Each structure stands twice: as structure tokens, then as C-alpha cells.
């Protein structure tokens, strides 16, 4: 007899979707846990909807035509290779933005330093607190209402999801 599954592991199994389907331990758990059974039903509805709306694929003459267009575009690109920018890693694509942001910050700091040495009266500094979480990439810009942050990485996750995130990361850590 196997070890009974708990709700955390059940939730992780359901998260995997139909590709990494449940075993008998999950079925046993769902039979005795109404909360997880409800979660499983909602999850199954999504999987059914996803399968029912599977996009169709080009075949036959339509695929022939698509390949012909692509082949022609390849010939054209071979003559003008510089027009194609390759989508590099995320960091590489983000670096120019970060570099610009850093340049703006450095220029601002230099300007602020020079300003602080000025003897003339000056208006009060506008201040703003911008919280940046671990792992976030943030672009700080000057908006009409003051400094504003554009989050370039993953969006804020609601508190209700935060616990689940922690649980999943713990599970991952234990699995490793």
C-alpha cells in the first residue's frame, strides 16, 4: 500500500495537466477530498476546452503555398541577410533597455552631484519609493506624476497565488 497523497502533491499533479496525468494515488486522494476534487473538475474543464479548440493546421495545397512563400522569402533574405535580426536570449534583448536605463541613472546622478554643489536656492527634490523584488527587472522612468517603474520581467503575482508559488518552489527544491 502506497503513501497517501496530500493536497499539495495533488495540486501539483493537477497542474501538470493531461500530459503528465494522474496516477491511482491522485484518484484515491480526489475521492476523499472535496476541495481537490473541485479543483480537478475545473482543471479537467480547461483541458477539455483546450482540446476542443485545438487550432487546425495547414495541409495540402495551403501548406505548399506557405512553403513557396517561405522559400521565396529565404531567397530574398539570402540576398539581404542584414534585415533579419535573430531573437537572442531574453537577457541579450533586455540589455539595451537596461543599458539605456543605467545611462539615464548615471546622467541623473552626475547632474544631481553638480546641482548639490550649486549655491543657488533649489526646489525640493521629488522622491518616490520603488520596491524591486529579487529577480525582477525594472525600468525606472520619469512620468508626469513622478518617477515610475516599468516591470520588464514577470508581472506581479497576487497574494493568493503567492502561497502556491512558494509551495511549488519548495516541492521543486525537495525533488531536486
Amino acid at each position: 500500500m502506497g503513501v497517501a497523497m496530500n493536497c499539495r502533491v495533488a495540486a501539483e499533479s493537477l497542474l501538470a495537466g493531461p500530459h503528465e496525468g494522474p496516477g491511482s494515488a491522485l484518484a484515491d486522494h480526489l475521492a476523499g477530498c472535496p476541495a481537490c476534487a473541485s479543483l480537478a473538475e475545473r482543471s479537467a474543464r480547461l483541458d477539455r476546452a483546450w482540446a476542443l479548440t485545438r487550432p487546425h493546421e495547414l495541409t495540402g495545397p495551403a501548406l505548399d503555398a506557405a512553403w513557396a512563400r517561405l522559400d521565396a522569402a529565404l531567397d530574398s533574405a539570402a540576398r539581404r541577410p542584414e534585415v533579419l535580426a535573430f531573437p537572442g536570449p531574453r537577457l541579450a534583448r533586455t540589455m539595451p533597455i537596461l543599458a539605456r536605463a543605467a545611462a539615464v541613472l548615471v546622467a541623473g546622478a552626475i547632474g544631481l552631484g553638480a546641482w548639490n554643489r550649486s549655491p543657488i536656492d533649489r526646489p525640493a527634490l521629488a522622491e518616490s519609493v520603488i520596491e524591486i523584488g529579487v529577480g525582477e527587472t525594472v525600468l525606472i522612468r520619469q512620468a508626469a506624476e513622478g518617477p515610475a517603474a516599468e516591470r520588464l520581467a514577470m508581472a506581479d503575482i497576487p497574494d493568493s497565488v503567492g502561497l502556491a508559488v512558494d509551495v511549488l518552489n519548495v516541492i521543486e527544491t525537495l525533488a531536486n
Partner: protein
Amino acid sequence: MLDDATAVSAPDEQLVALARLGDRAAREELCRRHWGVAQRVARRLLGDEQDALDAVQDGFLKAIVHLDSFDGRSGFSTWLVRIVTNAALDLGRKRKRRPSVPLVGPGEGRGGAPEPSVDDDPTLGLRRADLRRALDAGLARLKPAIRATFVMHAEAGMSYQEVADALGIPIGTVMSRLHFARGKLQEHLNGVEGL
């Protein structure tokens, strides 16, 4: 040079090696073999058939032109899906998402690829349209990074690790994004009949 019959049975690795040398038949077979998954991923990401075709063509173009940068650590399909995903997201940023307009009538797919028959259940086509609208709306509301994570896993069948490698994020982030996306999409299905 490969003949067409040999190309069809050749593994991706061999086709990639030949395509790098400029073999047209190898390029064509790679495209035909992987067009379907690329198209489905782009369609899910963009919610529009024509935009999806444009993104797939752009993605394939970049992939083949830059085939030398494919290092073989992942499968060709995984590498291609990443490129098509980026192409689709770039296109999505340039064009506002717009409601999907079916390019074909009920029961017939583009290019002679029929959708599952609705003869047995005349309401199935309508239900499927409702579901597609609900899912498209749900996907449109997800942030692009989360949408891409979910579509790579759910439509392209990529594992957590493959998605993590493709997007350059930790596997825990993949799982949290999937959890978040599933929750949001499930909300959009509330009230949709016939599931």
C-alpha cells in the same frame, strides 16, 4: 542533396545538418514537419489566424537563416517553437490583438484540414466557437511571458524543463506561471456551457 523520399524519413538532426549546407529539400522537410506545431502555438498566442501565419513565416525565416546558432542541446522543434513564440510576441506587440475571424466555415479547416465533424452534434460547432472565444479572451488577458509559458507547455507539449530552458527561467517559475495561467483560464470558462 536529399531526394524528397529520403528527406521525409530522415531524422531532424540529419535534416538540420544538410539544411546548414543549403540543401533545399532538407529545409523544406524541416518546415513541413514542424509547421503544424508552430502554427498552433502562434495561433494560441495571437488569437488570429492570419497573424499566426505571419508569425510562423517570420519564425521559420529567422530559424533557417540562423540555423548555425542551433546547438542541438534541445530538439529542433523546441528551438523552433521558442523562435516562433518570440516572433508571435513581437508581432502581438506591433498589432493590437483583435477578435479572431474564422477564415473558413464550420466543419472545414484551412488548406483541406477538416476540423472534427459536427454532423453528429450540430451544436458542437457553436460550442467550440464559444469555447475558443472564451479561451482567446483569457489568453489575451495574460501577460505575454505567462501566456508564452502556458502555450509552450499546453500546445507544444514541452516539458517544464524544456520551457524553462527555452525562456531562460527557473523551473519553479515555469510551474508558478502555469498555475497562474490555469487559474485565470479556468475563470474564463465559468459559465461556458457544454464542457
